[in-house]
């Protein structure tokens, strides 16, 4: 494999791995509803108990699958789905030689704002009956977050190695870098 192909493959590895991990996460979120349908009640209850650490799991505010609510609410599941879509978009952009670094930070803050606004609107008495606003704002934020999380995860091993060096050889690294 040429150096060019190898580097190109390395650039695609991060978003591909995160897309795969995100898909597995989404499957785990949907699993209890399907397990309930298959009669695996105890395993389904276990999955729901685990995801209760993350979400209120209100059945009235959750998507249903095979007649049962999935393990997290509409907003959470939309964020996860948006994240997977975002990872696929980063992967596609990388294939086209783009999206090598994260976009400006204020874009992520801007994508977070609709969730806050929608939550404020809902608590002020404007009900989101169909969950459409929660779905849209969740997908938008999850999609945008992927463009920041992918580069962060790619930089993480180098940062971890640097931090480990700082701990094991404090004198050599002198806890600083030349500016």
């Amino acid at each position, binding site marked *: 494999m040429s150096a060019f192909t190898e580097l190109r493959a390395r*650039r695609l590895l*991060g978003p591909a791995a995160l897309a795969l991990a995100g898909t597995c996460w989404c499957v785990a979120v949907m699993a209890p509803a399907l397990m309930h349908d298959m009669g695996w009640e105890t395993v389904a*209850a276990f999955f729901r108990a685990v995801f*209760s650490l993350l979400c209120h799991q209100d059945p009235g505010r959750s998507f249903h699958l095979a007649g049962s609510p999935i393990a997290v609410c509409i907003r959470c599941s939309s964020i996860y789905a948006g994240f997977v879509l975002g990872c696929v978009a980063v992967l596609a952009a990388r294939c086209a030689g783009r999206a090598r670094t994260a976009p400006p930070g204020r874009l992520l803050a801007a994508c977070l704002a609709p969730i806050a606004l929608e939550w404020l609107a809902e608590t002020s008495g404007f009900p989101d009956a169909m969950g459409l606003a929660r779905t849209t704002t969740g997908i938008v934020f999850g999609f945008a977050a992927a463009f920041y999380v992918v580069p962060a995860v790619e930089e*993480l091993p*180098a940062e971890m190695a640097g931090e480990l060096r700082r701990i094991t050889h404090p004198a050599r690294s*002198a806890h*600083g*870098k030349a*500016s």
Partner: protein
Amino acid sequence: MAKQADLWTPALISGAVFGFLSGTPFVGALNCICCSLCVGAGVLASFLVVRASELPVTYGRAALSGLLSGLFAAAFSVLSSVLFMVVRGVTFQNQIDEAVEKASQISPSAQQASEVLVGLGAPVIILLMLLFEVCFYAPFGALGGVIGRAIFEKRSAAPPSPQTPAADPTIQP
């Protein structure tokens, strides 16, 4: 010599604050809003790192600070949960029964699952709690770190490390 900020102290501070809140009755329910306390731990850690650093903080470093704060938050959350249970005189059996009552509206066999859990004993339940909280808090803390970096870092980013594929100049679009 410009210095990168220490990651451990901000991670410990934010992990302790948000972990304690997570284990506090009623306040801990805030985690039900898209895991907001775990994400909040990462955001606070990232904010503290950005404020203390003389160099622009990269997304990777912010994610690492968030991840560490998530790990600390998980440990503090379990500690404070156990502490509050002792203070309130509540046993694991009571806690599980309460959870089963809620869960049985969705899953009729929650009772069976609770019997399995109760049979494990308190030390194993605490270890399981810690395991699951670490699994959830670490990635959500890292996400919080990334969000914090996006919001608070106003300086132009340092050039990415040569180890990251994105930085390779030989790759042309």
